[in-house]
C-alpha cells in the first residue's frame, strides 16, 4: 500500500531530492564502467550527436547543485579524464560548495525538475562563473546517464547509445537503492516504514554484474541509510541474488512474479524475507516517483454533452 500522496510542492521537492541524492550520484558509480560516460564527463563530446570530438577542455569541473526548499545538494567532480566523483548528501555534508565550484542554484524544485527533463529551466550561477563554459560537459554526461538508465528496447544490443543490459540493471538498481535511502530520510511516512524495516543491511547480487566487470554486490544499510557497491559494511540480514539478468530486468520493470521466481530458484532471498519485501515496496515507490506513469485519458461517454467532456488528454488523478 503506497503512502498517501503528498501536496504538489512537497512532492516536487521530494522528487528533486531523489534526483540530487540518488540519480545524479550514480554518475560516479557508472563512469568507471562506461567509456561514453567518461568521454562526456571529460568534454570529449560535442553534444548533439554524441559523437566523439576533440577534447575541448582538459580541466577539472566541480559542480554543486542546490534547489530552493530542498535541503539536499549534489556536488559532482568531473576530472579532466572523465572520472566522476560525487560527494555527500544534505546541507551540512561534504556536498557543501567550496571556492572555485560552479554553483548552480534552482529557484524551485519545479525548475530543477524541468532541467532534469532536458526542458528549459531557470538556474542561477552563484559562483564559479569561470567554469560556466564547461556546463555542456555536465549536460552531455546527463544525457549519457539518461541513456544508460533507459529501459533497453528491442534494438538495444545493436545501439551503442543504449546501455548494455547489465549496466542498465546495475545503474537502475543503484539509483533505486540510493533513492530508497533518500526516501526513507525524507518522506513524512518514513518513520513508520523505518520501524518496520529495522536497521540491517540488505544486499543485491547478480552474476551478470561480475561477468560485465561490475561490482558483484550493491547494498543498502538501513541503519545509516547509506548505499554502496562491493563488500557490505556489516553482515546482511537479507541477501537477494538474481540468478540471471532477465530475472533482474523483470524485477526492475515490475513484471516479475517474485513468488514463482523464488520457488523456481531464479531469485534467491537468504535471510529476512519480510525486510526484503518491505524494501521492495520502497523501491517501487521510488520508481513511481522517478518514472511517473503516463496520464490515462478519461473515457468520454458517447452521450455526454460536449461542454462537459474533458479534453482527450486530460489526466486522471494518479493512483499511487
Amino acid at each position, binding site marked *: 500500500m503506497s503512502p498517501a500522496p503528498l501536496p504538489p510542492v512537497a512532492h516536487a521537492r521530494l522528487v528533486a531530492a531523489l534526483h540530487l541524492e540518488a540519480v545524479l550520484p550514480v554518475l560516479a558509480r557508472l563512469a568507471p564502467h562506461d567509456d561514453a560516460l567518461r568521454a562526456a564527463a571529460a568534454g570529449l563530446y560535442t553534444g548533439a550527436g554524441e559523437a566523439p570530438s576533440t577534447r575541448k577542455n582538459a580541466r577539472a569541473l566541480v559542480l554543486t547543485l542546490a534547489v530552493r526548499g530542498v535541503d539536499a545538494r549534489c556536488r559532482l567532480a568531473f576530472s579532466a579524464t572523465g572520472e566522476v566523483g560525487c560527494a555527500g548528501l544534505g546541507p551540512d555534508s561534504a556536498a557543501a560548495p567550496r571556492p572555485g565550484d560552479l554553483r548552480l542554484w534552482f529557484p524551485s524544485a519545479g525548475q530543477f525538475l524541468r532541467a532534469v527533463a532536458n526542458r528549459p529551466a531557470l538556474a542561477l550561477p552563484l559562483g564559479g562563473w569561470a567554469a560556466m563554459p564547461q556546463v555542456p560537459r555536465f549536460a552531455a554526461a546527463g544525457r549519457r546517464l539518461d541513456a544508460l538508465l533507459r529501459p533497453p528496447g528491442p534494438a538495444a544490443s545493436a545501439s551503442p547509445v543504449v546501455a548494455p543490459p547489465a549496466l542498465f540493471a546495475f545503474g537502475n538498481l543503484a539509483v533505486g537503492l540510493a533513492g530508497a535511502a533518500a526516501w526513507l530520510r525524507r518522506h513524512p511516512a518514513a518513520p513508520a516504514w523505518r520501524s518496520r524495516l529495522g536497521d540491517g543491511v540488505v544486499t543485491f547480487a547478480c552474476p551478470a554484474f561480475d561477468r560485465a566487470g561490475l561490482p558483484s554486490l550493491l547494498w543498502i544499510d538501513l541503519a545509516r541509510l547509506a548505499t554502496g557497491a562491493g563488500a557490505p559494511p556489516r553482515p546482511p540480514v*537479507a541477501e537477494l541474488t538474481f540468478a540471471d539478468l532477465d530475472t533482474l530486468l523483470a524485477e526492475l520493470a515490475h513484471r516479475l512474479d517474485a*513468488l*514463482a521466481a523464488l*520457488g523456481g530458484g531464479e531469485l534467491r532471498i537468504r535471510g529476512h*524475507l519480510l525486510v526484503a519485501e518491505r524494501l521492495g515496496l520502497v523501491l517501487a515507490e521510488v520508481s513511481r516517483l522517478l518514472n511517473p506513469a503516463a496520464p490515462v485519458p478519461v473515457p468520454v461517454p458517447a452521450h455526454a454533452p460536449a461542454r462537459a467532456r474533458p479534453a482527450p488528454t486530460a489526466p486522471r488523478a494518479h493512483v499511487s
Partner: protein
Amino acid sequence: MFPKSAALFARARRVIPGGIYGHTTPAATVPGALPFYAESGAGCRYRDLDGHDYIDFMCGYGPLLLGHRHPEVEAAADAERARGMSFNHPTERMVELAEALVARIDFADWAVFAKNGSDLTTWAVQVAREVTGRRKILKALGAYHGTHAWCSPGHGGLIAEDRAHVHEFAWNDAAGLEALFYRHAGDVAALVVTPFHHPAYADSALPEPAFVAAANRLCAAHGVLLVLDDVRCFPRLHLGGSHRLYGWTPDLAVYCKALGNGHPLAACVGRAAHQVAASRVFLTGSYWGDPVPMAAALKVLEISARDDVPAALARAGRRFVDGFLALGEKHRIPLRASGPPAMPYVRLADDPGFQRTQDLCAAAAREGVYLHPHHNWFLGAAHTEAEIDEALARLDRVLAGLG
C-alpha cells in the same frame, strides 16, 4: 533433492500466480531445501512428492491436532459424508456443534460457523461495530488475523481507506494500548488479540499478566468488545479456550485451524448480550453448512476432552523443546526458544537475519524433520515420546553438522 516437486512447480507457475501462494509458498521457507508438495501423511509424519518422509512439527500450520488421518475423526467424517452434503439446509450437526462449544467455552452463549479464520475474525469485527456503533479496531503490531483488507499482511490491492480505522499497538505495551484507547475514546469498537503473540520472523511472546489485565480493564471501561483470535491456538492450549490459560475475558472468540483436525471449519462464539447484534450481521458461504467438518469437529472435541490433549501436547512440547535446547548446549550452538510448549518456536540466538536458522531447518529437512525457520511450530497428539526422541536424535546429527 526435489526433482518431482521442481517439475510440478514449473507446471504450476504457468497456470497459478506465484506457483504456490499464501502461507505455503516456498518463498516463506527455504526454497530448494524444503519440500514444495505433499504426497501423503499418517500420524505425525508425512511424505513429500519426491518420497522423503518427515516427522512433522508444523501439522499443516496447525490443523492436525490429532495427526494425519486420525481414524476416529475420519470415521465420523466418512459416516456423515455417506449421508450427503451441500443440502438446502443445515443439518443437526450444526446445532450439536454449537451446543458443544457453548458447553465447553465458559463465556459462550452462542456459536456460528464458517470455513476460515479470516471469515470470522472479519465478521467478529463487524459484530463489534454493530454492537457499539463505533468504527475503530485496535490490534497488535505484527499480529496475523487473516487475509482480509483490514488485516492482511500482504501489500497488493490495498488502499489507505482499508486501514483507516485500524490502529496498532506493541504487544505487551499496556501503556501504549491505554493511550490508543484514550486517543480514540468513544470510537473504538473492538480490541482484537491473539492469546499469545506469534508473529512470523520473530520470537513468540506470551502475554504479561499486567498487559492482559489492562486490556480486560480498558475494554470493560470503554465499552469495547474484546475479540480473541484463538484461530491458531484452540484447543491446543486449553480445552475451554486459550483465554483460560492467560486470563483474557473475551466477548467474542474465533476458532478454526484444529477444530476439525484438518476438515475445513471455523467457529465464532459470543455472549448472550451480543446475540441479537450478531444476528444482524450477514454471514454465509456456499459450503458453510457442510455437515462433514462439523461431524469431524464434534469428534475432535470429544477426543480432546477424553484424552486431555492439551496436557499431552504440553508434555510432548516440553520434552521436545528441552531436548532441543540441551542439544544446542551440547554442540555449543546457542538456541532460543519461545512460545508455549505445545506451539514452540526454536531458532538460533543472535541470528537477526534468520540465515543460520534457515540453515538449521534445511539440514533438519535432510534428516527427515520438518521445522519452519520463521513461524511457530505445532505439536500434535500423534507426537509420542518415541517420535519426539527420534526427532531429537536426528536433530543431534543436524546440530553436529552445523557446529
